[in-house]
């Protein structure tokens, strides 16, 4: 049942699209530094461009996911969404973003990887999340029986808040002065934070699937299998992160727990293969409907990335790929191929009024869709090949210098930049299209 209040999620999705634009530009500029070392060295340099790229893309996902949860709850909740709380949350994000970008542009760092800004700006983010949790619970209370995606959203919000706070334990000397524990916590945070965002995004994906599918039997909101998958995902969120630190001399039980839990991902993998034929039929039915087309792209990239992630979680294979661009390929594959595809599906669903949603999309959108997929395949391949070559170098008994090894990767870095430009151009088509729709239809 719809509430009479306007969807507060839209403002978050629009803000997220702006941040994606910044992330894409900074990403291409950072890539150029790999092939032109002196590029922007005296101004921004890689030191500022990398965090600008990484944080902007992270915020595209975090703020975009926030918008998706609000939009979903706007459809589900029986009472009006807490309008004031969403405005407070947005104000806190804006304060944080001004501080963070100011921090990067002036070189005022001090934070950890992915969160390199001055830690003071983490405070408004944490507070905004508390507001989000309060707002979400007040909305969810009115839903009598929760579908799996409401569970996933609640999980994502609670765990993001917990893990984001854990992300700043390093400010206490007790943690910071013990290097191995500190690194263990840092990568516990990085791994679990991705898991909590996945809960928000996969929850959104389930919600969208339920809304798109006209087949009542295919709805997954209350299926036992969906709940089973949710708990498996939650277990992985909590205990799977240790595969990042197989090489770190931390306690064995942490490494073995991660090794065992990560192998449960085979269940997801087998399920995708099992469902493949059925989904192919659905794909043909809904191909022209853009939100569904993005969700199908997500399925493909989940398959590719999960396959690679499972292999990387086997310690003996991890030894070859750890610290190489194979890891970057995995993170690019998931942020672009999975997270961004779900967010674009949501953008097309929530930002475009139902009366304007069509099964005959403009040709430019179809071209952008396929150029995005092809560019991502090229990016993925270039990073994987660069990673394998670095992996070989790492284990070579007659290792050459680091600089010599990097020179041999140059052709793959050129392909990386070209495919990056392709990705940026394709995304720009979707960003402009969605923002034009928002402007045309007012807030």
């Amino acid at each position, binding site marked *: 049942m719809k509430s009479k209040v306007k969807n507060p999620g839209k403002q978050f999705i629009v803000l997220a699209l702006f941040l994606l634009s910044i992330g894409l530009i900074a990403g291409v500029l950072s890539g150029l*530094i*790999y092939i032109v*070392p002196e590029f922007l*060295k*005296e101004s921004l*340099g*890689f*030191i500022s461009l*990398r*965090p600008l790229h990484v944080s902007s893309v992270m915020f595209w996902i975090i703020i975009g996911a926030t918008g998706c949860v609000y939009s979903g709850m706007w459809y589900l909740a029986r009472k009006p969404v807490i309008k004031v709380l969403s405005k407070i949350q947005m104000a806190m994000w804006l304060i944080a973003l001004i501080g963070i970008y100011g921090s990067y542009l002036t070189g005022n*760092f*001090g*934070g*950890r*990887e992915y969160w*390199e800004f001055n830690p003071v700006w983490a405070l408004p983010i944490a507070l905004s999340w508390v507001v989000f949790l309060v707002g979400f619970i007040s909305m969810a209370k009115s839903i009598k029986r*929760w579908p799996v995606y409401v*569970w996933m959203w609640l999980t994502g919000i609670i765990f993001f808040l917990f893990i984001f706070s854990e992300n700043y334990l390093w400010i206490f*000397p*007790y*943690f*910071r*002065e*013990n*290097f191995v*524990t*500190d*690194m*263990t*916590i840092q*990568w*516990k945070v990085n791994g679990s934070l991705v898991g909590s965002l996945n809960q928000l995004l996969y929850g959104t994906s389930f919600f969208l699937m339920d809304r798109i599918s006209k087949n009542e039997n295919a709805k997954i909101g209350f299926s036992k299998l969906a*709940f089973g998958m*949710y*708990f498996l995902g*939650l*277990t992985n969120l*909590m*205990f799977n992160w240790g595969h*990042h*630190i*197989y*090489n*770190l*001399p931390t*306690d064995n039980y942490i490494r*073995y*727990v991660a*090794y065992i839990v990560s192998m449960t991902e085979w269940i997801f993998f087998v399920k995708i293969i099992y469902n493949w034929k059925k989904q192919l039929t659905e794909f043909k039915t809904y191909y022209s409907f853009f939100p569904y087309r993005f969700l199908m792209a997500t399925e493909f990239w989940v398959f590719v990335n999960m396959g690679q992630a499972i292999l990387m979680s086997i*310690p*003996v294979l*991890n*030894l070859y790929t*750890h*610290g190489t*661009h194979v890891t970057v390929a995995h993170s690019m594959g998931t942020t672009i191929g999975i997270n961004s595809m779900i967010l674009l599906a949501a953008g097309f669903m929530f930002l475009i009024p139902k009366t304007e949603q069509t099964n005959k999309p403009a040709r430019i959108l179809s071209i952008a869709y396929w150029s995005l997929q092809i560019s991502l395949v090229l990016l993925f391949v270039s990073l994987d090949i660069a990673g394998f070559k670095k992996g070989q170098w*790492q*284990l070579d*008994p007659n290792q050459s210098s*680091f600089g010599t090894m990097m020179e041999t990767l140059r052709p793959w870095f050129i392909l990386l930049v070209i495919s990056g430009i392709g990705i940026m151009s394709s995304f720009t088509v979707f960003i402009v299209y969605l923002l034009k729709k928002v402007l045309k239809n007012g807030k």
Partner: protein
Amino acid sequence: MKSIKISVPAIFFIALCLLFLVFSFSIYLKPYSISTFQKNEFELAGKGRLVWQKYNCQACHQLYGLGGYLGPDLTNEFRKLNKNEDALRAFFKGGMKQMPQFNLSKEEEIQLIEFLKSTDATGNADPRKYKILSNGMTEQYEK
């Protein structure tokens, strides 16, 4: 008195959360086992970690293979430079290729060097120094 009915997903959720908290606290409590002598030794290295973050060294460099990909892993850089602190200072000041020149204060230099000494002391990040166990796990065999 009204009884509270908890759904099956809620029970599973709470049970998993409790397990997660136990697991997390088992990690948080690790520094307790460190002796006071070591704690004093690590204080300077902890400050060096802040210098590492202040100059965003992690954008390009790795520690145990974790961090940026533009520059080399620095976990054992102190050892690789034959424990020569002046060589480290020269890198900070001179820069190279994409690496800019950093104007670290004397105090920051000492702290950062202490941090790199402490990472080196924890073990060997070179993948060639790991052995493969029969169950597929890997283990550092040479510190």
